[in-house]
């Protein structure tokens, strides 16, 4: 069950900051430890930047997950209608980049999350969903 999903635009550097702040607010509200907050904020930052840089902008859906009293989590879905990723395995390799970054963002976000799902189709867009449980 999830309540109060929010959708935020990811179209500028300021938007990336707002996404981080919204994710932090939710993670704090759910009682995440400081380390877990930092991990999910960092993952959100990496994915938001990917949406902006490689997807040409898009949006993120921020969901609060409540599966029973002891299982709370944050789910983030980043979606763009950019060029897509032709080789997802390659894109998930540390150090691989088609831009001028370090090539750590996508796989880094996966490492910092408990669940990770990526869908992409060249010419259509990319959708990345991560979940981090408390």
């Amino acid at each position: 069950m999830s309540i109060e999903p929010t959708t935020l635009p990811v179209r500028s550097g300021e938007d990336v900051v707002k996404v981080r702040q919204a994710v932090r607010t939710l993670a704090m509200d759910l009682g995440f430890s400081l380390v877990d907050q930092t991990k999910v904020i960092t993952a959100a930052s990496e994915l938001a930047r990917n949406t902006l840089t490689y997807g040409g902008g898009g949006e993120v859906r921020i969901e609060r997950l409540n599966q029973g009293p002891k299982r709370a989590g944050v789910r983030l879905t980043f979606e763009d209608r950019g060029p897509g990723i032709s080789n997802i395995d390659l894109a998930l390799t540390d150090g691989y980049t088609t831009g001028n970054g370090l090539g750590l963002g996508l796989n880094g976000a996966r490492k910092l999350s408990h669940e990770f799902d990526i869908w992409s189709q060249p010419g259509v867009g990319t959708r990345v969903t991560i979940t981090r449980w408390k």
Partner: protein
Amino acid sequence: MDRVPILRLGDCLLVTVQVDMHDQLAMTLQDDLTNKIVATKARGVLIDISALEMVDSFIGRMLGNIAAMSRILDAQTVVVGMQPAVAITLVELGLSLPGIRTALNVDAGLALLRSVLDRSDEGAHVD
């Protein structure tokens, strides 16, 4: 436009990052700092990131760039004040900030800079 202030402290520059940095601000800081190193002939750069709630690969790359550019301009960089949660996350992310000197706080960072600069001065005399 927003700018991160750069303070002069003897022959060192002190940068305290106090805002949630967006990417353009990080790029501006890189430019400002290199210009200031040349203008003030600074030998050391101290970057205090104790107020940063996260360091992602972009900010990590910026810190690495600053350290590399400073070195080329004959200045040493020390990054200080990283929060424990940020350090844990950075390592899990796969980023260990190679080539960047770190210290726990500004005092320790200044002491480290002092010793590095003194050593490089001695080296210059010997050579």
